[in-house]
């Protein structure tokens, strides 16, 4: 990602604020930790020069849209744009109130993967330079190169940036990523090969760690219920006590509830502080939705939301 694109982004956004086309903007600025970025939410054009674009803009900023008033300009990667479209489809935000600033995403580096590959924590790594097809990682005097498919976020693998679903302006040019449909399916493949009993044990073990911080829900743009079922007390669906059964039940319902809205952006897994591979669930669900309904969430703002529309051709064996 070049500095010119960053400059162009700042100029465009300053202009949007100055001309009153938007009241607030949501973008990324440098974070307080190594290789981190953090959401920048502001209506002050003095803040514009803090905006950045780099391979670490991992947050899906669309999660903030529902809470904002007036017209909002939002910096969006393709996956975020899909979430925005999905919110428009679900009438959570109005199209005219959001100004989508599409940015070319050359892929987001998954720091958890880099940590695994190097055996180090992110703050122990000296530098990560992204060179389109590979990441050059420097640590402790060593330099190692990792191919894109090893370091990019799962959601980036197999992503075709050309079909950006919706934007008002686009900064720069769309770049192609690592292609290949099966990329990003490693965990799913591993799970598919398990016998059901073994898979059950796997998830039981994973959800035993869940502490119910609800970061997966809070970071999720598709989780927009004003009152989450997990917080209902009359009747009580799910106990707030984090037993693995309730944890698993919570996540299973959450996943099903966002089916057709979830764009598999990967934020739930990234946010999870106890490393539950939630992306395997969301990705699998996305695949099932595509297979059953030939539908991808957030690609068409005029399409009815998947679960509210019914077509006569939909055969009954969907209910099994």
């Amino acid at each position, binding site marked *: 990602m070049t500095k010119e694109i960053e400059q162009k982004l700042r100029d465009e956004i300053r202009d949007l604020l100055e001309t009153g086309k938007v009241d607030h903007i949501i973008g990324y600025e440098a974070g307080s930790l190594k290789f981190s970025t953090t959401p920048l939410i502001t209506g002050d054009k003095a803040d514009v020069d803090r905006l950045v674009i780099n391979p670490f803009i991992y*947050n899906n900023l669309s999660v903030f849209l529902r809470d904002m008033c007036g017209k909002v300009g939002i910096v969006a990667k393709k996956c975020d744009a899909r979430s925005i479209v999905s919110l428009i489809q679900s009438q959570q935000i109005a199209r005219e109130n959001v100004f989508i600033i599409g940015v070319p995403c050359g892929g987001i580096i998954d720091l958890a993967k880099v940590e695994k590959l190097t055996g180090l924590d992110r703050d122990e790594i000296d530098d990560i330079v992204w060179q389109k097809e590979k990441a050059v990682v420097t640590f402790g005097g060593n330099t190692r190169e990792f191919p894109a498919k090893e370091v990019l976020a799962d959601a980036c693998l197999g992503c075709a940036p050309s079909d950006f679903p919706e934007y008002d302006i686009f900064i720069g040019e769309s770049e192609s990523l690592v292609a290949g449909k099966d990329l990003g399916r490693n965990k799913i493949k591993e799970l598919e090969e398990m016998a059901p009993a073994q898979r059950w044990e796997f998830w039981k073990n994973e959800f035993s760690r869940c502490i119910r911080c609800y970061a997966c829900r809070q970071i999720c743009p598709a989780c927009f219920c004003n009152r989450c079922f997990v917080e209902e007390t009359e009747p009580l669906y799910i106990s*707030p*006590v984090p037993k693995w059964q309730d944890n698993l039940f919570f996540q299973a319902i959450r996943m099903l509830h966002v089916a057709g809205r979830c764009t598999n952006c990967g934020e739930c897994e*990234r946010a999870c502080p106890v490393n539950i591979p939630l992306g395997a669930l969301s990705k699998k669900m996305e695949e099932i939705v595509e297979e059953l309904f030939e539908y991808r969430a957030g690609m068409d703002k005029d399409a009815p939301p998947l679960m509210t529309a019914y077509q006569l051709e939909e055969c009954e064996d969907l209910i099994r």
Partner: protein
Amino acid sequence: MKKIKKQSIPGLLGKWQQEFTVFVPSKASGVSQMTVWDGKDTAFLDRNRNTAIPPKANFLPAMEKLFGFRKEAGSYKLEPADGEPPRQLLFGIHPCDARAIAIIDMVFKDAYEDRYYLSRRQNTVLVGMTCTSAYDSCFCTSLGFGPADPVDVDIMLTDIGDTFLIEEVTEKGKELLADAKGVVEATRDDEKKAAAARESASARVSRKIDTGEISKRLPLVFDDQEFWEKISAKCVSCGICTFLCPTCYCFDINDEMLRSDSGERYRNWDCCSFAVYTKMPVENPREEKWRRVRQKVYHKYLFYPELFDIIACTGCGRCIRQCPVNWDITQTLSNLPAGTPVKK
């Protein structure tokens, strides 16, 4: 001072295992946390960074059964939870987390003595380790202690290569080492090495805050809504910073009905960032997010010091490095407006 070779530690842990359930920092469960030692793992002897889940979980577990209850002859019969908690030894705890336990002790033995917490606490010994690998999010040295501070543990170890230097801090600590195989007197040279290790451990903590300035400014900015709205804008109100904070101790109480006439009462971690916090008994007085974020900062840096004369933060940095939006409490504290109170 004494010392012990790293290769003798498994033997020592084995000896302690006869008396205690021995916990060590481990990622075996899928997340780094204090984990029951399996008798083999030694990875933590060479690499021991702060666990993601703080050791407070050993005293205030994420969920804890308080008692069972059964309807009987028009009344309820209570069945106490299973006995005394086992004696536990936490090996390799860092000074920030040991200090955090000392801090929450204050609240659990204040006007009301919480026997669940205190019985675990009294049944515990802490074997500390100088933290030689602070994260870039750590700021313990700004909170009146440092990564080598031994005051809150029973024994303190400092890594000096293939050996740990041992400080026996408490009587309990001394007893633990009596007749321990491999423990020998340290030389002047060992002590010098340990002093250097402690010094470089402190130097590694680069993030700083100014607690004096913070305590002056906080009382002035409570009503500065604009400031709190701005700094809380990116918070998503999840529970990570609370649940992983070694000094956050809020809990909720829930009854699990097993049948219509019997059940179990649990307590589990609760979090003031949640919009539904305290909604069950009354209402959440902090409906807007900025009020909840403000509460977090004030509780740690103003209210707790007013009550117990100590800041309820040890600079462990978990809330910064685990936050999914990189909300950074040190930035908020460093950017507190200096001005006079803004009245709404």
